[in-house]
Every structure is written in C-alpha cells, then in structure tokens.
C-alpha cells in the first residue's frame, strides 16, 4: 500500500483527487490548495472533506446562527458559565451547581440502520456533555416518523426505539421525556434528535483546549475500527435517493458498556485534576478531535498515527482519520500526570495510548510509518471552513398555503358529534398514548427522577438535601412551522417553555435541534432563516439564551423536504422538587380552572390534520408576554401550594389536556363550557399561553386573587370527581375506561403487541 505523503503531494501537483466524491465543491478544493500551497495529501483531503461538510462546519447555517450569539449571555437565575460555541453551554443553577444540556440529530444514520443510528445518537450527545466535565444525568429523545401505519415505519420505529432504549438503559441514564410524532413528510427521512443533560460543580467546568507545549495527547476508550468511515460527510450531507451506492457500512456501531466505563473513567480523571484539555469524538473522529484541540490551545500538535490502537489492522491512514468509531475521547495531559492517567484507565479497563504531543508550531502534523502525511494549519480545518450566504426566498406557494384557512372545514356540532370527534382525536397517532415507546426506557435509574413521560416535562433532582432540581422539555410542531416558520419556531419555544413552567419550574435556557431540507433550495433556506430569526427574537423576549444546539440539513427525499422542524428544548430550575406540580388529576373535589384566552384557532391544528387532512391558514397566535405571565403564575402556585395539578394545552386543545389529566390516575371530571364560547372551539382550539390546573377548594380564593391581580384570564370550568367519567355538561359523557381504550390501543395495534 503506497501512502500519499506530504513529500509526494508536493512533487505531484497534478495528480487527480476524488474531492467531488468526498462531497467537496470545486471552489472548496481550490481553497484547500491555496491554504496549503500545494495539493492536499489524501489524508489531508479526508480531514478537510469531513470537517468542511455541512454537518461539521455549519457552512450554510453559520451566518444565521450568529443571531443566537447576540442574545444576552445571562439566564433569569445567573450568568452562563460557558456559552454557545463550546461543546454545550453551561448554566449556573445555584447552590454551586451548573447544568449543561444539548440536543443533537442522528437522522440519516437512523434511516439507514435504525437501531445503531439511534443508539449512537444517544452515545454521541452523552459524550458531548461528558467533555464539559459534567456527569450525564438524563436523556430525552425527540422522534419523528412517517405515517404510523406505513410499512417502512414498522421497520424504522421499533429499531429506533430499541436503539435509544438499548443504549440509554445500558448507560444507566434515565429517559425522562421527548416526543413521538408521525407525519408523511418524515416517511423517507425520520428525525432522531437526542438530548442529554449533565450536572457539575462550578469548579469542575472543563473546556476543550490543548494548552501547554510538551503536554501529551492521549486517545482513550474504544479501538478504532472501520465503522462510520465518511459517515459525517457522506451520510449527513446527502439526501436519500432511491438509487445509489449501499451506505450501510457508513453507520457507526455502538457499545454502551464501553461508554459507561468511559463515563466513570473520565469523571475519575476529572476528579483527579489531571486533564488539561479534552475533546469527545463525534462526527469526523480523529480529524475533528485533533484539529479542534490543536486550534483551541497553543496552536500546534504532532500526532503519530501508528499509535492509534486499531480493531482492524488493514485500515489505511485516511480511514483511521475519518473513522467514527464510537466511545472514544482525547485528552491533553501534562507529562507528569500521564502515569496516573494510565492507572485510572486501567482501573476501568479502558485502553489509553499517548498518540501525540502539543507544540507551538501552529501546525497540525501527523506521521504514519515515519513519514509526514498531514501538515496543516489546524484552524483552517476546524474553524475556518467555507461559509455560505445561501440564497433564500419566500416560496411562491406560501401565500396560497396561508390563504387556505380552516374556516370552511365542517365542524362537529351537538354532543354526539363532539363525543365521537374527541374519541377519534385521543386515538389519533399524534395524540394517543406513547407508552409503547416510553415503557422501553428506564426512567428510574439514578433514583432522582421526580417526573418523567408522559408528564409535560421531565424533572430531575440534583441535590438530595436541598431539593434543587431541573425540568426539561423538548417540543416542535412541523405543521405550524410550515405555515409560518418564524411563528413555528416561536410556537415550539413557547410550548417547551410552558411545559417546563407547568411543573412549577422557572424556565431559564434553550437548546435547539433545527431539522430542515436542503439548504441549496432557496425555499428551505428561507424556512431556516425565518425559524432562526423567530427563535432568536422569542428567546430575547423570554430572557432565555440559546446555549447550544445542532443543525441538520438535507432532510428530504428527492425534491421533497420534510416539514421544517425546529425542535426546541427548554431547561427550567426548581428550588425544591418537592414542590413540583404533576399533571394528573388525583383529588375529587378540586376545582378545574382554564388559564389563558381561548380563540377560534385551527390553522395547523391536530383536529384539521386528523379529521380533514388539512394544512393551511396561519398557526395560532404567539403571545410571549402571556406565556411569561402564565409561567410566573404556575411557578408561584407551585411554590405556595395553590394547585394540585397543571397541564399544558397544546396539540388537541383543552379536550386532550382534560383526557390526559383524567387518565393519569383514573379519576373522573365534570366540565362545563364557559359562557360565550362555542363548545367545539372550547374543546379543540390550540390557542397558546394556556393551561388547565386543579385547585384545592380552600386555595381557590388565593388562586383566583393571584390571577386577578395579574389580570390573567382564568375561568372555572369544572370539578374533579370520582364518577369514573369525563362529562362535558350538556354535551356528552365518556366513561374513563372507554377513553383509556381509545387512547391506548393505537400504537400497540400498529406495532404488533
């Protein structure tokens, strides 16, 4: 095997190179030649091609994402300890604790190989959190599939769910929430977004850098194999065509047991104080880790590639540099600490090898069998990739879509029709019980899970003494975003914010996972730009900074893009998790209140989708001031014990919220339609900034007094009882058992129980 060395490259400037096959454009290849003053070696070409891919370089999204950097780097409870740009932002949550959280997509690999694609998506985001010095304490997964009854969904969904569960369960991280959404636009391109949250003490924050000339570069964890080669550039940056090469070998294979050892080993290394710099291995493997570490520190690094332990000795150096083998980390360690480092790794049976050294050459140099195969300025690989101002334009169909309002759709009238509509809605794929999925996830491990799915948000205790804890929710509505991407992103933010707020937590920070079609399509680029603008404006208004995130583009099949899907994750803080508010109705006699204003809003609604397969008009209005007011009411009510249950109102409206609240503990409820409201609008409208709460009778005066003082709309709409039915007075009565059967049968029937 001949190796393409720096010397050869200098001597053979005209040798043709497969830059196009590696996903580079002609101008990008030319730029690499300019940077180096010669043609790149094949190893250098491999590195640049993966690091300059859309997935790693954010070359199409960067110019828009800058808006997030302009937000105030402060949350309602304190300063950011690390902002966007690190692996994950770090938030001060008080009492000396800091929390870091981030979401990441693994969409394309999960379509090709659902189990491993999803599993390694969880593994990757967990290592991101670990690299900040935090102990991972929970995961969530935001999943989107094609129609629930499509044959390919029966292949993809069980594999993805088993992969998320198989990896997370084996790592010992509770899965506390997420989403499962079905829509035809995801049929050839499912979305698998995984979120991880970690906690640390302030003093344990670690940032990736390779400071200190002479410091040793240690690769530890799994051996490097032939899996995931080119995964980042090839899988994540190309759309799925029906024809084309088989891509299966590009998907990485996960080993959660190794990752568990890596977590415990890494945390012990941090505790020993012997890590000067650290980088997880994500997309682009060694290419990424070495160039990122080198450019963050003194600016130079020399790596001896022969020292990388291999699973397959026949791998070429280019493949070693591109391999995305999982469960690997790279640390920079002072020479005097190497022995102690190796001892700790040995304790956890984790392989570790010194593969290089930090220097001040301003170059990243890599040798293989004694010859130089890479000699590049590391920043040009890691941070100075191409940046595109892609053209974007409001698509010509947008006006037509918005003009096709749902006002002409036939609405149910009378008790019988409302009753059957409600039963049809609660059984519909996007509103039915997710137990089939979530029962495959361990929510109990670590013993700090206070709330988990199906609750509105996951709540995790951080401190057993003080009760300090966090709440987390992820949300998105692709139909809303299609109707108006600016509002759609704000609606996702508003819903996640509200979901955190109903638990009694104070929402403080945002992460995102922006899933869109091809950036080369101006219509898609417009959707993306609008969504980013909407999210940034929304975050500014709510005072919640975006602390990190992920962009996934090229989510489309042929020319057809997915619904624009900006998934937004919101983190909240609870001073004492004992005070959290669950959503289930439990106590007969407690009064049911509807908070917020209900308007006739059905654009993009679940009702229009389920009953009429209609998508048109405008999504519900966004009122972030009202969201903020509602959150403060819910926070105060939880702190003062004024509510026994609180449930966010979103998809499916009040009807869905009432059904879920009743089913949680199997009690009944008697509800009446407020004066002046149409029963159908009352039950199914998706107006925002609303919640359903249960108020113990003795607290009613204080509660309504608080809402009144804040001039926030609040309406007494019912009472919890033990009659075993949901009754809407004058309209219909449905026994709880019948509701439960309707709500719980759909997914088991579709996925073979």
């Amino acid at each position, binding site marked *: 095997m001949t190796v393409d060395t720096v010397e050869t490259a200098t001597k053979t400037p005209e040798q043709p190179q497969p830059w196009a096959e590696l996903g580079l454009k002609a101008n990008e290849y030319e730029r690499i030649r300019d940077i180096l003053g010669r043609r790149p070696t094949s190893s250098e070409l491999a590195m640049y091609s993966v690091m300059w891919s859309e997935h790693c370089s954010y070359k199409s999204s960067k110019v828009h994402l800058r808006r997030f950097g302009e937000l105030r780097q402060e949350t309602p409870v304190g300063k950011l300890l690390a902002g966007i740009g690190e692996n994950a932002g770090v938030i001060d949550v008080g009492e000396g604790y800091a929390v870091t959280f981030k979401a990441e997509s693994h969409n394309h690999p999960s379509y090709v190989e659902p189990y491993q694609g999803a599993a390694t998506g969880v593994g990757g985001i967990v290592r991101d959190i670990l690299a900040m010095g935090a102990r991972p304490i929970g995961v969530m997964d935001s999943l989107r599939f094609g129609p629930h009854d499509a044959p390919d969904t029966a292949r993809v969904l069980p594999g993805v769910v088993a992969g998320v569960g198989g990896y997370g*369960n*084996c790592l010992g991280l509770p899965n506390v929430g997420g989403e499962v959404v079905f829509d035809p636009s995801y049929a050839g391109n499912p979305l698998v977004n995984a979120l991880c949250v970690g906690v640390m003490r302030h003093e344990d924050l670690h940032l990736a850098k390779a400071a200190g000339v002479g410091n040793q570069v240690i690769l530890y964890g799994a051996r490097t194999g032939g899996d995931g080669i080119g995964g980042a550039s090839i899988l994540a940056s190309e759309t799925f065509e029906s024809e084309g090469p088989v891509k299966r070998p590009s998907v990485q294979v996960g080993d959660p*047991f190794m990752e568990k050892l890596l977590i415990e080993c890494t945390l012990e290394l941090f505790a020993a104080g012997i890590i000067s710099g650290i980088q997880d291995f994500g997309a682009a493997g060694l290419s990424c880790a070495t160039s990122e570490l080198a450019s963050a520190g003194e600016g130079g690094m020399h790596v001896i590639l022969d020292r990388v332990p291999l699973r397959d000795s026949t791998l070429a150096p280019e493949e070693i540099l591109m391999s995305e083998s999982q469960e690997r980390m790279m640390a920079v360690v002072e020479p005097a600490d190497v022995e102690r480092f190796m001892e700790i790794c040995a*304790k956890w049976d984790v392989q570790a090898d010194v593969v290089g050294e930090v220097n001040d050459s301003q170059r990243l140099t890599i040798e293989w069998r004694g010859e130089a195969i890479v000699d590049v300025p590391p920043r040009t690989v890691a941070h100075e990739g191409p940046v595109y101002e892609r053209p974007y334009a409001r698509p010509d169909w947008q006006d037509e879509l918005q003009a096709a309002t749902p006002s002409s759709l036939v609405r149910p009238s009378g008790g019988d029709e409302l009753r059957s509509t409600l039963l049809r809605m609660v059984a519909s794929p996007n509103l039915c019980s997710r137990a089939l999925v979530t029962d495959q*996830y361990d929510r*109990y491990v670590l013993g700090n899970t*206070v709330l988990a799915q199906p609750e509105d948000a996951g709540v995790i*205790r951080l401190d057993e003494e003080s009760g300090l804890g966090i709440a987390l929710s992820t949300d998105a509505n692709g139909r809303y975003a299609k109707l108006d991407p600016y509002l759609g992103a704000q609606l996702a933010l508003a819903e996640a914010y509200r979901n955190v707020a109903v638990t009694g937590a104070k929402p403080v920070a945002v992460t995102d996972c922006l899933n869109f079609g091809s950036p080369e399509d101006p219509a898609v680029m417009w959707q993306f730009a609008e969504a980013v603008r909407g999210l940034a404006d929304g975050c500014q208004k709510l005072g919640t900074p975006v602390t990190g995130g992920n962009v996934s583009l090229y989510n489309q099949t042929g020319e057809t893009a997915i619904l624009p899907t900006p998934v937004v994750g919101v983190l909240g803080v609870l001073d004492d998790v004992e005070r959290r508010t669950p959503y289930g109705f439990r106590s007969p006699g407690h009064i049911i209140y509807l908070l917020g204003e209900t308007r006739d809003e059905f654009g993009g609604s679940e009702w229009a989708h389920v009953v009429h397969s209609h998508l048109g008009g405008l999504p519900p209005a966004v009122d972030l001031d009202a969201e903020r007011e509602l959150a403060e009411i819910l926070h105060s009510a939880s702190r003062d014990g004024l509510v026994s249950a609180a449930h966010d109102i979103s998809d499916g409206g009040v009807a869905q919220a009432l059904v879920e609240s009743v089913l949680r503990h199997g009690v009944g409820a008697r509800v009446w339609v407020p004066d002046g409201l149409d029963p159908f609008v009352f039950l199914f409208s998706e107006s925002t900034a609303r919640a359903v709460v249960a108020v113990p009778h003795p607290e009613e005066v204080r509660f309504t007094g608080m809402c009144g003082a804040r001039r926030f709309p609040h309406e007494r709409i019912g009472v919890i009882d033990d009659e075993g039915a949901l009754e809407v007075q004058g309209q219909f009565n449905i026994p709880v058992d019948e509701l439960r059967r309707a709500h719980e049968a759909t997914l088991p029937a579709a996925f073979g129980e």
Partner: protein
Amino acid sequence: MTFPGSLDDGDAGRAVRIADGDAVSLWHGDADLRGVDAVVLPGGFSYGDYLRCGAIARFAPIMEPLIDAAHGGMPVLGICNGFQVLCEAHLLPGALVRNDHRKFVCRDQRLRIENASTAWTSAYEKDQEIVIPLKNGEGGYVADEATLDRLETEGRVVARYLEINPNGSYRDIAGVTNERGNVVGLMPHPEHAVEELTGPGTDGLGFFTSVLESLVAA
C-alpha cells in the same frame, strides 16, 4: 457492590441509608468484603451483558468471598442483574432469559410477597401486595419443572407478579430464595421505591429495613 456496568449501585446505597443502614461500596476487583454485614448486588448490565447476563460477573474476584459468606449465612440480595449473577454463581436455582415479548420493559409492577420470613422480606406480611418498578430486558425466570415444584413446596418463591406477567417468567415468579432464606434474588427494583418523590411509592423500603432488623436481632 459495583461491577463494571453496574447502574443501580448508587440507588441501592441510597435505599440502605434511607433504611438507616450504613452503605459501604464494594468493588468487583477486590477480594475483600470490608467487614460488611450484608451485600446487595445491584441492577445494571455487568460487563455489558454481551455474553449471558451475569455470566462474567460471577468470576469477579469479589465473588469468591461473597459466595463463602453467603454459604455462611450472610444476607445477600441480588436485584435484576444481581439476581442474574446469583443464578450464574449457583447461589440460587434457575436462570433468567430474554423477555418473552423480546423488548425491554419499564413499568410499575404489582407483586405479592409470598415468603415473609427471609432475611430480606421479614418487614412484610405474607401475601402483602406491593408496587415497585420493574425494568429489564432479560427478566424471564426459568427452571425445570422439578426445580419449580421444589421451590413451591419449600416456600422459596419470595414474590410473584400480579395482574400481568411482564416478561414470561414461569409461574409468574418475580423472586426466589435459597434454602436458608439468606440469599434472595428479585427481578423488580425495590431500591427505586423508597421515596414518595422518586418512586411509585415506598413499598420497596421493606427489603432494606428487613435485613437491618434481622441483623440487629442476630
């Protein structure tokens, strides 16, 4: 006790503390029980469970003194993966196989305590019903008919699943004990039901108070 891949070791320690005991961490690589009075083998995926669950953990250095101590009467509780380890180590009869529906399952499970005289169940009444979390991928308890009959006649079925059998266990068996009643294996997780805040209730606490009472009495 922590093996590589143990996950619920911290929870088991917390449960012991809530029951007013002192929790001592034991490490798989040490051949030393550090003077403890009882041992909990926690849930998780020891060594990734890539071979057979618990099959590698049973060869850990610490298992030698543990097996000796168990034969000498020390209370040992194996939960989930710990139950699998105890079966692999032949401290308990039978084996645990992949769930009959082939999926991991996590649910709040109702059980009936059938033997309230073991070192780990004396705080319960016989036939008391409790609800504690269950979470496993390979929790189906199997044994040959003769063994199952013997377990039944000797009263060594410690707990049985009620309402549904979540994993295909023979005769709905959720937990068994050895002849002496000091070694108990249980597939569901009592350590996840020791606080109202984080569990479905506190029904699991009895396992930990039982062993502390029996040790104080002895």
